[in-house]
Structures are given as structure tokens and as C-alpha cells.
């Protein structure tokens, strides 16, 4: 038997019976509408077929080594309880389609309703969608939405936003409709320069976009931002890439954010070399109908029993076509489910404790690094679970030396910020044991 047949059930007898029922002689006859001249006469040039065990062997050979790591920068290594993988492996969840047929999709729908609620609570907002592709595209959609609402042209983008998120925003906007003004950061502090922001804040500004904690791990001071932006009639968009921080940090909703958009990978989703991740998108009730993406709402069935459905679909592409709020069709359903299960496990206390542990461990590493002679903490502002180190020497060479000792010592920042050419972004989570941090500091000192 051919190896590929494990997924295709047809026997030769079945095929003959079916052809006869259809009234054709051969499989070839079924493709009669494809012009003969274009039909392939030779097989595709592809490897395989592989048996299951040969496939496993092949895939094992492609794996990467697992090493001690202090790399973050928008993707974080957090512990994922076994429950998350076990429950999302239930095939009733993962082999289902989008829940268009509500009566046989109540599992997915209730879980998304719970997800939407959790995201509102976490970000301090009123309404959440069912998720977006990732943090970067979610933030870009937020910028497009602000433009739809205000009709204004200018977007003030803090330079401390994840550089790849900024690139995605740049790609998404139409340069004839919108213009980006980059707001620099305060050199010694690593946070958005409020004075320069104030200079650019005028009646043409559609939105001010700030990430918190920002790409340097710095906690931005947002105390007065909402009021100032709203005075000029613009919107505040708060981005984020590390939602664990909101276990302790005041959420953007309490600073007057109008849209909160960011990355949820930290909430129980594996690193997986950059995806699939989870775009989170929350806003105010009054903007619900301007939102992109799917929404789940509560309703009742014809016996009055509570149930959930996809709702307000008249914003979406399959109904509204060229007049939709976005072209997004799918969400990241299974990743949203992972986040829902993860947060259900952690709960109110667990998330706070986890946040405090991340902060504490990063502070421990910061202290260890600041005792190294050729090394100092670059920014004076408070940080969450990552921070920038300024080192003497070439970061690439230093990282290479650390790598030889089995440690990924941080992320060199020069490719994102040319002026930060002696700087490393170092990330510490609850995963990093004290001995690992000590070892990192020891090897770093030696490497400098």
C-alpha cells in the first residue's frame, strides 16, 4: 500500500462504483473542463511520500537546540501549565471551523465570550474582539480604525514601540491618506519624550500610539496622556507586547486609552519561532461598530436558554464586502483559547504573583549586571521584565562568546536603533533560575 493512502480511504472498487454512478469512465474525465493543453503530463517534483516514522525522524533532524536564553523583545518564554496543551488538544476544539453554526459550536463561542471578557478586564477596557493575527497587525488595525473614526491624517508613533510593529503599521497605512510622525525617546530614560509629543499634538492628529511596557522594557508614564490627547480630539492607542505586566501594572483603560492593541503570546502560547501568536484588540463601547474582526455576543435560544453567537457581522467582509471595516476574516481562535485557559488557571492571584516574580527576577539580573565594570543599565526609568544594558565592546562578539557557553545573552539593539550600537536588550522571566542569571552575569563579565 502506498504510504499516502493512510489519509485517503478510497479502494479501487469504490472508485469504479462511484465513477459508474456519476456516469463517466475514468478519473481523467472528471477534469474535462480543464483545457487539455494545460493539464500536467508528468508528476510534480516533490519528495516523499514518507511513512509516519520516517517523517518523525526527518522532523527530529530539523529541530533547533534548546539553550538558556535571555532574549525577549516581543516574544517571551513563560511556563505553560500542562492543562493548556491538554485541553486545546481536544479535537472538538481544534478540528472545528469558525463557529458559523452556533448550535454545534457553543464550546468555541462560550470560550471566546470568556476570552473577550478576560481581555477587557486585563486591559481595563469595555469591549474586546475575538482576536487578531498578532500584536503587530492588531496595532496596525488600531491605527486604521482611529483614522476611520477621526478622519484625520497624522499618527504620532512613539519610537519605543516594537520596531517590527512600527514597520507593519507603515506597511498597512496608505501614505496618501495618513502620515506617520515618529516621537523620539528621552536618551537617558528610554521613555517617550513627552515634550516633543506635545509639540506635535494638534488638531490634525488622529492618534497617539504608545507601547507600555515599551520595547526597552521601560514602563511609560501615561498619567496625563489621555486628557492631553482628548483635548485635541485625537485618540490614544496603547500597544503592548508583554501582557503579564498587566498582572500588576495599571491597565491602559485607566489612563484613558481609546484602543488597546497588542500581543498575547505570553498568555500560554508557545514561542514557535514567531507564530502563531495572538493579537488582542479592545476598545470603548462607543467604538464597537468601528472595530475590525469577529465578535461573540450573548443571546437566548427559542426556549429562552442562554447561548452565544457571532454578532454585529455587518461590519465584516463576508457581509459588507468592499465596505467592511477590515479585510480580516479569521481570528486566532485556538490561541485565544490557550490564553483563556492559561488565565483561568492563573486567576486573579496567580497573574499578579507571576508579574511580581518576573519583575523581581529582572531586578536581580539588573543588579548583577550593574556590578560588572564594563557594563551599565542604559536607562534610569523603571522597567518590567526586560532592560537595556550598555556594554563596552561589540555586542555581536560578546553575544557570540556567551553563545559558546550555551547562553543566549540578550538581543543586540543596533539593527533596530543604529544609535544603540553598544546595547543589549536583556529579558528575564520566571523561567530563568537564579543560577542561570548568576552564570549569565559571570560569563558576560568574562566576555567584556
Amino acid at each position: 500500500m502506498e504510504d499516502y493512502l493512510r489519509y485517503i480511504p478510497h479502494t479501487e472498487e469504490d472508485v469504479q462504483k462511484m465513477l459508474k454512478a456519476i456516469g463517466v469512465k475514468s478519473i481523467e474525465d472528471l477534469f474535462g473542463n480543464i483545457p487539455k493543453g494545460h493539464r500536467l503530463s508528468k508528476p510534480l517534483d516533490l519528495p516523499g511520500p514518507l511513512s509516519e516514522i520516517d517523517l518523525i525522524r526527518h522532523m527530529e533532524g530539523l529541530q533547533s537546540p534548546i539553550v538558556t536564553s535571555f532574549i525577549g523583545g516581543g516574544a517571551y518564554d513563560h511556563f505553560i501549565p500542562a492543562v493548556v496543551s491538554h485541553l486545546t488538544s481536544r479535537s472538538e476544539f481544534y478540528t472545528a471551523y469558525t463557529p458559523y453554526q452556533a448550535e454545534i459550536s457553543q464550546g468555541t463561542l462560550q470560550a471566546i465570550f470568556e476570552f473577550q471578557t478576560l481581555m477587557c478586564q486585563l486591559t481595563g477596557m469595555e469591549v474586546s474582539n475575538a482576536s487578531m493575527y498578532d500584536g503587530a497587525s492588531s496595532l496596525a488595525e488600531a491605527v486604521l480604525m482611529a483614522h476611520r473614526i477621526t478622519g484625520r491624517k497624522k499618527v504620532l508613533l512613539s519610537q519605543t514601540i516594537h520596531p517590527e510593529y512600527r514597520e507593519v503599521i507603515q506597511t498597512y497605512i496608505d501614505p496618501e491618506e495618513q502620515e506617520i510622525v515618529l516621537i523620539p525617546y528621552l536618551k537617558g530614560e528610554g521613555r517617550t519624550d513627552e515634550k516633543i509629543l506635545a509639540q506635535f499634538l494638534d488638531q490634525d492628529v488622529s492618534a497617539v500610539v504608545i507601547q507600555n511596557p515599551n520595547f526597552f522594557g521601560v514602563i511609560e508614564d501615561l498619567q496625563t496622556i489621555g486628557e492631553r490627547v482628548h483635548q485635541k480630539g485625537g485618540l490614544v492607542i496603547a500597544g503592548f507586547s508583554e501582557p503579564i505586566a498587566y498582572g500588576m501594572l495599571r491597565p491602559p483603560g485607566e489612563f484613558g486609552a481609546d484602543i488597546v492593541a497588542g500581543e498575547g503570546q505570553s498568555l500560554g502560547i508557545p514561542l514557535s519561532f514567531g507564530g502563531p501568536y495572538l493579537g488582542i484588540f479592545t476598545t470603548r463601547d462607543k467604538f464597537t461598530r468601528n472595530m475590525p474582526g469577529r465578535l461573540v455576543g450573548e443571546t437566548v435560544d427559542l426556549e429562552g436558554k442562554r447561548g452565544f453567537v457571532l454578532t454585529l457581522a455587518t461590519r465584516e467582509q463576508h457581509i459588507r464586502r468592499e465596505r467592511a471595516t477590515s479585510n480580516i476574516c479569521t481570528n486566532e481562535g485556538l490561541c485565544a483559547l490557550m490564553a483563556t485557559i492559561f488565565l483561568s488557571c492563573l486567576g486573579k492571584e496567580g497573574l499578579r504573583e507571576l508579574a511580581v516574580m518576573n519583575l523581581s527576577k529582572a531586578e536581580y539580573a539588573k543588579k548583577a549586571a550593574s556590578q560588572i565594570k564594563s557594563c551599565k543599565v542604559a536607562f534610569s526609568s523603571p522597567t518590567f521584565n526586560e532592560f537595556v544594558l550598555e556594554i563596552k565592546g561589540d555586542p555581536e562578539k560578546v553575544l557570540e562568546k556567551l553563545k559558546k557557553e550555551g547562553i543566549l545573552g540578550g538581543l543586540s539593539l543596533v539593527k533596530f536603533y543604529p544609535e544603540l550600537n553598544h546595547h543589549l536588550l536583556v529579558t528575564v522571566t520566571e523561567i530563568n533560575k537564579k543560577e542561570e542569571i548568576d552564570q549569565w552575569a559571570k560569563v558576560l563579565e568574562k566576555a567584556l
Partner: protein
Amino acid sequence: MCSTKVGDRVEKIKDTGLLQDEPLIFEQGGKGRKGYSLPQWDTEEVEVNRLLPSHFLRNELEGFPQLSEVDVVRHFTRLSQWNYGVDSGFYPLGSCTMKYNPKINEEVARMKGFAHIHPYQPESLVQGILKLMYELGSFLSEITGMDQVTLQPAAGAHGELTGMMVIRAALHARGEKRKRVLVPDTAHGTNCSTSTVASYQVVEIKSNERGVIPPRKVEELMDEEVAGIMVTNPNTLGFFEEHLAEIAEIVHRKGGFVYCDGANLNALMGIVKLGDLGVDMVHLNLHKTFSTPHGGGGPGSGPLAIKKELAPFLPIPVIEKKGEAYRLNYDRPQSIGRMKAFYGNFGVILKAYAYILSMGAEGLRRASEMAVLNANYLMTGLKGSYHLPYDQPCVHECVFTDRYQEKHHVSTLDIAKRLIDYGFHPPTIYFPLVVKGALMMEPTETEDKEELDRFIKTMIAIAREAEENPELLRQAPRRVKVRRLDEVLAARKPKLRWNPKD
């Protein structure tokens, strides 16, 4: 329902069987409960209030769940039991290609050397991963007859947007700016909204009596203001666009591009290459054709395959091979930029790669052949019982309507809901829009003859019920967790989150 006395109160207990009632996570649990164990403290716990100003800190997470691990497991297990997946049974959802999702691919995606790898891990330590991505790109190029692939788009619609931006950039490089995009009336809604997001105006082309695009219409509408055409091939009626090569020529003559929506590629693998028909770019849905699970609505993956003239405009980074080494190239001055952070939905990408290796060239061709055989068998079996608006052979899917049932005041929706009572997932309904009351069925190759026969028999029985006892259909479904839901109420009084005050 039974009543029982608890102290001096009478409580009602519902006999829900195994469809247990399950409250929201916020409506259960108890103060202080949690289902997570923090790693051991081996560094000092900082005093948060000393380290950070008080206005940086939040009050407690109001309303957040407080559950034990057992609570969590029971909750989500129960929820899962109210869902229907491909593993539960036949799922003939048209244009969605709900084929079987091989289990080994799920295991492969969980291998530590993939799942635990950080996207910024140095290139020298991710050579196997880059090789996998590079090779998948070349497999997809071979299957579609294109030259290069970007794996960055996270879904089909995301691939479409990437493609339209590539077209915009290619026109810009020629010093041109065009205004319109041609889209046939059989198109997925995303084609239209994608064009709008990419700042193009949509011009609709009417399909002909055979359900395909007539070249004459394209000729009429095509001029130097039109950036290109978006064609789904095979289209959503389940037909191969038989004039595509001629249409491509017309579009190219006026300097436009041919975008192909490859959502329905499952009919064509090893049969025909889209590149040979003059297509300039095509997006693929790895979660349809290449067997990766739909996840209850994502994550998907929508790679874009292009002809080499368009390569300079692909999103960054591009994976390249130099000798035996793989690298990420960011130095692409003409690139449209970036569509998402990092490189694509790698966890999905690797499942599609594993699938292609498991199938090989012969297996993929066999999959397409059996998918087309199944669709035609289904169409033949239902002809006569249901109205077939285009009576001609189909490829991967077939479209019926409710016209015969209409006279009994039974609609497509009723037929769909009645199928649930018989244990099937309904087909796609009311799409494509060109067919009134459409029932769009795509069986895929992974269903056997017995399952198709059972489905055909059931559909014929439902047609008879529509005549004899239409109320049965209008009241369906009955044997599910919830009966028909009030969608009007949901939209009129949106309740999009749980609130402690409710």
C-alpha cells in the same frame, strides 16, 4: 427537571444528560482558588510599592476567575463537548476544505526544538527551521507553478492583502498608479474588502450562464486604470475558470496583474499549475489544502506565491540559501515592508510541510482526484432531490439551492439545521451570493463512499420531510445544547462580555 428540598428551599435540578450546563468561568470558583503553581522563589521578592510609583500600579483584577485546576479541566472539557469538529464527523462546508487533520503533525509541532524556539534565536542555531521554511516555499512554488513564496501572511485574507500591496508596489515602481480592481460576482467577500484596504475600487464582473468569467466582459472592463483582476480558481461555484489563460492575456496586454485566490487549490494539485495559466500570484490556505486544522477559527496560514518579476516587492525578511546555509535577508529596498512581526505562523507552516512530505507528489494528485470524485458523486446523488442551478460537472465542490423546498416554506437555513439533528455539520449556506438560497458542499478526499452515501440518504430524507412535515425542519435542531438562537436580539442589544453587575 426534578425538584428537591434543600433545607427549607426547593431547588430544581435539570436532567441535561451529558450536555451538562456549564456556567461561565466568572460565575464559578471560590476566593483564593488557583490552578497554577509558581516556580520556586530563588531570588528576593521586590517590594513593588518601593520600586514603582503608585499610579503605575493597578488595583486587583476585578472579576478575574478563581478556579482550581480541576475546575478548569472540567469547564473546558464540557465546552469542547458542545462543539463539532472534523474528528466528530462529516463536515461538508463548501470553500473551507474540512479535510482530516493528521495527528502526527500535531505531535511534530509540539517537538521542543520547534515549539520552544525564540524567533530572535541566532540564525546559526535555527538552520533546520529555516531549511524547513525554505523547502516548503519551493514545494508550494512547484505545486502552483510559481517562482517564489513568502510564508509571512497569517491567513488567506492576509495573503490577499500582501498580494495586492505587492501589485501596488510593482505599479509604483513602473511609475504608475491605478485605481480599480476587477472582481467576479462569485468572489469571496475578502477579495472585495482586501481591494478596498489596499486603496482600490472594486469593479464587479458578472459570471456567465456556465458560472465562469467570460473573457469578453474582462476585455470590456480592462484598461490602463485597472491594476488587475482577482480570480478564485476553481471558483466558489466549484468550476474551473476555463478561460483563465485567455483572461490573463487580456489583463497583461493592458499592463495589469492576475491575482488568484487559491482557497480552492484542493482540486488542482498535480493536475494543473496556475502559473502555466498566466497567473502572476496566488495565495494558498495551508489550513485548507494542506490539512492544518482550522482551530475553531484560526490560526491559519496564507502564503503568497509569485512570479519572479514580483520578487523584489515581497515582505521582509526573505529566507535565502547560500551554499548549505540559510539566512534571513532584510536588505530589500523595494519590499512592501512587513505584514506581521517575525516570519509567519511557523507552528502552522511546519504541519503543512509534514503533510506534503507524507503525501508526496503522487499522494497530492490522488487527494485532488478523490476530492473531485467525491464532489461529483455527491452532486449526482442529490440531483433531482435538490435544485442544481448549474447542471454540469464540478471540481472540488457543488452548489445546490432550496428552490424545490421553497414551496413548502422551508429554507436553506431549515435544511442546514435539520442536518444537525442527523449528526452532520451543515454545508456552507447562502454563499456564493450569485445563487439564491445556496447550499455549497465540499466533501474533500478524506471521506469514504459509505459516509457520502449516508449523507446523500439523509439529505434525500430531509427533502421528503420538507414535503410531508416541514415543521420538523423549522423547529430543528432539537438534539443539541441550544436550540436556534436569536441573532437579531444579539445584534440589537449587544452583550459582548460578562459583567459582575448583570
